[in-house]
């Protein structure tokens, strides 16, 4: 099987979906330009023309409601935001209009909209260019939210999102774009709402979201070196969350660490912890623990940015605490950064 980067996998999916279904349109600020949203939309405008792939005025609000009107008239819009932070300008349309239009009109109205947005740390992106905001979207009934972490899942989940008759928020971390892995050439769907166990283990379950999946697998490899067997689960879909494999895993290991690529307070990690707390009461050997962003706005300076974001080291230290192990020496270990890119495969 040939290898593709995550960004190439997304781009291939958009090409295949637009070829397969003429009702698919792709638009957003900067989408058809030469940089093409980290390369993920390069060539779409040339191939499919300005009626199906187009740039927009800097007007996130109208262009989100625009997707609803276009969807009600039979199109399948994919609206792309180069930063999730910019989606905040469109939350009225997303939350007040799109998420509930089907419910408010009797339940049989297809609202096939994909909102694709780039999340996360880049190179000093600071407080307004780096948010995840998972819980902003997962909180809202009527929205599906996916956050793939591998090229294969990126391609398959985007296809599933485009073919879904509901609004889907598709969140991808910009560092994931570099990862290369085997990706099937033909078109395929990865089902929305199905988690994936990436690594099996008996001592500790780690549920990780988006980029933290990469960090959790890295941490699991480090921990394996000292005899700690970690099970890593990637929910892939954040809403609706596939809780069954998570609960089954925690019943097996008795320990849960949630590594969320987001702030912890009132966050998705608290929701997972609450569900597991109910389902696994009496089976937990340790209190559930969480790692995520520092409870601050994101600083731009690298020295503080390194403290703001959790990584594999954060996960290792928390795992050691949960298993009453002394901290190991990590001085020789390389961790991922903007310069030391993780290029996969996972």
């Amino acid at each position, binding site marked *: 099987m040939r290898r593709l980067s995550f960004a190439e996998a997304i781009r291939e999916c958009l090409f295949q979906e637009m070829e397969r279904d003429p009702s698919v349109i792709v638009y957003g600020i900067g989408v058809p330009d030469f940089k093409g949203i980290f390369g993920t939309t390069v060539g779409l405008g040339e191939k499919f023309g300005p009626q199906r792939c187009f740039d927009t005025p800097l007007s996130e609000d109208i262009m989100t409601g625009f997707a609803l009107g276009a969807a009600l008239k039979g199109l399948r819009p994919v609206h792309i935001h180069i930063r999730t932070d910019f989606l905040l300008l469109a939350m009225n349309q997303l939350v007040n209009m799109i998420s509930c239009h*089907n419910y408010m009109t009797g339940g049989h109205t297809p609202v096939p909209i994909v909102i694709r947005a780039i999340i996360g740390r880049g190179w000093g992106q600071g407080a307004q260019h780096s948010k995840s905001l998972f819980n902003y979207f997962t909180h809202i009934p009527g929205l599906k939210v996916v956050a793939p972490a591998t090229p294969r899942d990126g391609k398959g989940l985007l296809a599933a999102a485009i073919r879904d008759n509901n609004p889907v928020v598709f969140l991808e971390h910009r560092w994931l774009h570099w990862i290369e892995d085997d990706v099937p050439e033909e078109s395929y769907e990865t089902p929305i709402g199905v988690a994936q166990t990436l690594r099996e283990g008996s001592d500790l379950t780690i549920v990780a979201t988006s980029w933290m999946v990469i960090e959790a697998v890295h941490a699991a490899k480090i921990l394996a070196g000292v005899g700690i067997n970690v099970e890593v689960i990637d929910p892939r879909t954040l809403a609706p969350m596939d809780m069954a494999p998570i609960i089954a895993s925690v019943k097996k290991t008795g320990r849960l660490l949630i590594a969320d690529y987001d702030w912890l307070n009132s966050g998705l990690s608290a929701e997972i912890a609450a569900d597991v707390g109910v389902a696994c009461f009496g089976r937990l050997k340790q209190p559930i623990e969480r790692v995520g962003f520092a409870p601050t706005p994101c600083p731009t300076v690298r020295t503080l940015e390194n403290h703001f974001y959790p990584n594999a080291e954060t996960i290792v230290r928390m795992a050691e605490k949960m298993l009453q192990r002394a901290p190991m020496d990590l001085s020789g270990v390389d961790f991922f950064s903007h310069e030391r890119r993780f290029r996969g495969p996972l």
Partner: protein
Amino acid sequence: MTRRCEETIVRIYPDDEMKTPMHMSMGQEAVAVGVCRALGNNGDVVASYRSHATYLAQTEDHGSFFGELHGRVNGTADGKSGSMHLADIPKGMLGSTGIVAAGIPVAVGAAFANKQNSPGRIAAAFFGDGATDEGVFWESLNVSCAMGLPMMFVCEDNDLAVHTRKSHRQGFNSLVEVVKKYRCSVYEDDTNDVESIYAMTRSAIAQIIAMGTPAFLNVKTYRYLEPCGTTMDSDAPYRRAEEDAYWKGRDCVALQRARLLANGLAEKDVVAVENEINAAILASVAAAKAAAHPTPQQLYYGVFYEAP
């Protein structure tokens, strides 16, 4: 028919069987009726929360209307949505929204889809002058003009946002003069006459199709009842007696009735039509009251799309 439906609401609302806020169209009906008649079967419309006249003009379906207002399963959304979210998508009534100006972008998206897939079909957004205070109105106007969409903006200009007049809200003197700077055609009406609004809309449609650019219609009108509710609030402090008398002296329904008689229709024939409409409305109200409320299970139905 629209007027008679709302008169019926005014009469039976105190029975408290329709537990939904009512933003009444009464006094303003000529705008929706004139525009929707001009669009015929070749238009998609999105209404504001003051949606009754638009819904009834576009769908002519007071059966689903009263079912929805009564919260019954024969309503537009199985009785779950009430007065502010009336929709009938197959009939081109794409939706109504409780958020001021939020429906305008939806009509713009429909106009984009129509341009590709249904040439000659127009999308229209109905909104009050209050909606033009919102940023998304200006974004929508800009996008429609920049993209050259078959889009009609219909401003139902009653001068009031709840109780606040335009003069307190606008930092410019004339909305119409500002909009004329955009690449669209602009129309104005101050007659409250449904046939005049119809004729103006036909001209606007012809222009949209010929030029491939949007149209903006500013139609002066007057709201008879309180902003939300069924009470005639003529004595409220924000009202002006001379304005009230002026508009009620040119009531759109009375104007059209007088025209029918002047055109040679017999009084008894007009009364016969009115009686027929009244009887049909009473039948719709009775059917609504006889229908069931949604079951508790229906609370959870339709969060995500369900195949019909």
